[in-house]
């Protein structure tokens, strides 16, 4: 039986089920923790490190998306130290790729862009790395602009876990890591892609987009995910 526990998040008394994460319980109590890789309905991976929180009694910072609530837990989500680390994380992401917001299809609706404003990042103190990355527009309906990819792997997970196609995966390592379709073949040539577009809708930035969109025209609709997972759970 799953027990209900009580805990404190930022001095708010909160309750949650043992099988809920700190992130889920925080959201239920109106506390927004910054995040890029976590998305309700997908297996959390703890990769972006934006949702790191302080938990009393733990010397290490813990990702809210993969840490389960426990009885009497005391969580701090927004200390000066965490804010400092989050700002640096945003700076690292912006300098890693070529995020030119002014010419992006999701300009104004991008999760990375919004986080930068929210966390007070107004310039990058570290140099831009300007990687050479090639756009893949071989698919009939969608395109991949790896310049804007933050490697959150939401596309990889939604494709494997929800659509069941596993078209997306990762290749290389470190700073050379990249998302690929099938065995790094052009997306348009992929034999596993069902063209369902789920990857495009969950992508937090303009890395995956619908063709024919101009700057600022595209809105991502990730809400299907909650509906889909809920209806599947009902059917079980």
């Amino acid at each position: 039986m799953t027990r209900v526990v009580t805990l404190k998040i930022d001095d708010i008394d909160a309750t949650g089920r043992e099988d809920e994460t700190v992130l889920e319980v925080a959201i239920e109590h109106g506390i927004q923790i910054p995040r890029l890789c976590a998305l309700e309905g997908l297996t959390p991976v703890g990769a972006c490190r934006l949702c790191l929180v302080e938990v009393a009694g733990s010397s290490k910072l813990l990702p809210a998306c993969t840490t389960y609530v426990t009885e009497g837990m005391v969580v701090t989500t927004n200390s000066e130290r965490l804010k400092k680390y989050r700002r640096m994380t945003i700076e690292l992401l912006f300098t890693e790729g070529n995020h030119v917001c002014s010419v992006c299809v999701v300009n104004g609706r991008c999760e990375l862009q919004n986080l930068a404003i929210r966390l007070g990042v107004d310039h990058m103190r570290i140099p831009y790395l300007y990687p050479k990355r090639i756009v893949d527009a071989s698919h009939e309906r969608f395109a991949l602009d790896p310049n804007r990819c933050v490697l959150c792997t939401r596309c990889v997970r939604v494709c494997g876990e929800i659509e069941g196609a596993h078209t997306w995966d990762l290749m290389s390592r470190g700073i050379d890591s990249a998302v690929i379709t099938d065995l790094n073949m052009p997306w348009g040539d992929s034999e596993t892609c069902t063209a369902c577009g789920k990857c495009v809708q969950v992508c937090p930035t303009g890395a995956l987009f619908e063709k024919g969109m101009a700057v600022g025209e595209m809105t991502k609709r990730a809400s299907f995910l909650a509906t889909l997972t809920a209806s599947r759970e009902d059917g079980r």
Partner: protein
Amino acid sequence: MTRTKIATVWLDGCSGCHMSFLDIDGALLDLASRIDLVYSPLVDRKDFPDSVDITLIEGAVSSEDDLAKIRKVRAHTRTLVSFGDCAVTGNVPALRNGVGAESVLRRVYLEPDLHTAQAPNLVVPKLLNVVKPVHAVVPVDVFIPGCPPSAKTILYTLTELLEGRTPDLSDRTRFGA
């Protein structure tokens, strides 16, 4: 009372930030009573003055001329403001950083079938191989992201600076705005 001396400088950008500045409209008149616009693409003056209180820099540092200009501006400015995405991030001018200046010149001037194909090498300043945001070259005091920043944001920033306060832009503008 001495009026605050303000300069605006246009490096590698589209002048959109200056246009947005002019969009302040009526408030420009109030502003005009409090400032002296001592140097700008909008005024007719060739040399950068000796001591300026606030300078707004539009555009990225993209040529040897930009480099010389920004160093001079920094030396004679008290508060330097990176004005808009090109100055703050490199933005569109920095798109060429993945390929380098040489290949851009070749693509634009030599590859098309022109009557006399040659890259400009006289009078025009030499391009730097890597376009840099302003703060990568000289220290910057205030950053206004945006492509362009809205007139409201610009007015707010200037007003705060004129009052001697540090503007908080976190929820007023954004990259690409």
